[in-house]
């Protein structure tokens, strides 16, 4: 029996943590590669509607975004609770859309302009009045390819 008990004094040996940095680095690289930085700071709350027949937007550089929704709590004092639209970082008026679209178009490569898409990210509680006005403005700016952003319904 004594033969087996020889090492039995030390309790459980400590687990080596030497490989921990490697594991963490692996995770770190995964997130670094897969990450896309949030481009805009949303001042309005947007909860997208659900749909089943959705298509992915392929090239992000071809897409410009229009956000529509009610201002978040911090801005409600200043802007009220009526749905507003946000272009880039600022709450804007409907009439700003034409300027915004031409500015976006300017930034693009000439060959890409026909493929330009405008993604409307609107809150599901918004009324159609504002959406229709936006669509009319987009027609005026001749940005005709649009995408109603929505989540995949399960």
């Amino acid at each position, binding site marked *: 029996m004594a033969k087996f008990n020889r090492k039995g004094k030390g309790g459980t040996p400590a687990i080596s943590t030497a490989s921990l940095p490697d594991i963490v680095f692996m995770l770190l690289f995964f997130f670094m590669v897969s990450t896309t930085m949030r481009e805009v700071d949303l001042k309005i709350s947007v909860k997208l509607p659900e749909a089943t027949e959705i298509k992915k937007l392929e090239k992000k550089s071809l897409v410009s975004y229009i956000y529509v929704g009610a201002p978040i709590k911090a801005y409600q004092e200043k802007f009220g609770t009526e749905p507003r639209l946000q272009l880039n970082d600022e709450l804007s008026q409907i009439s700003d859309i034409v300027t915004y679209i031409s500015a976006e178009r300017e930034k693009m490569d000439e060959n890409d302009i026909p493929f330009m*898409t405008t993604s409307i990210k609107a809150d599901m509680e918004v009324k159609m009045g504002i959406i229709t006005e936006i669509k009319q403005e987009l027609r005026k700016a001749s940005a005709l390819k649009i995408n109603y952003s929505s989540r995949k319904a399960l």
Partner: protein
Amino acid sequence: MARPIQEINAGSMADIAFLLLIFFLVTTTMDVDSGITRKLPAIQHEDQPKPPDVKERNVYIVLINQHNQLAVEGELMPVNKLCDGVKEFIKNPQDNPNLSEKKEDAVDIPFFGMMELSKGVVSLQNDKGTSYHKYIEVQNELVRAFNELKDELSMKKFGMTYKDLDDERQKAVRKVFPMSISEAEPRNIGGKK
């Protein structure tokens, strides 16, 4: 005096890596952008000729009022029946005089030969007070109807779904069932607000 080179303590490496990891975890957004893609009509100038009028039987009128109710061809309809309604209207297998007409001249389409195409157009109108999620729901149903038509046709002809066909076959199928959804110029229906 050959002193051994001191080893750098790597113990805090994990902490640094963790810090970076948490930073990226917080700032990351994994969502891919997706949605229903539509094309808006170009704006109609006054000096341009008006598009030809479409016969009433060829237009499938879908209205949504400010209470999010759906009226199809003048009658109330639940959203889940809309998809089948549109398919029936476009296909019109029994040549029902109330549903869409076929074009007078058959068109030659690659892979299919001479085909009689439907003249049917779905017209979607909404009120200012319609909520956006109802509108998307209806749009979704309309797109689904056309996608199912395409899928059925490709299943019958090629034994594959539309998605799995090659580009030329997809184009041919698209020609048989073009996505003919038109949206009316905005106006107030269902009373003023």
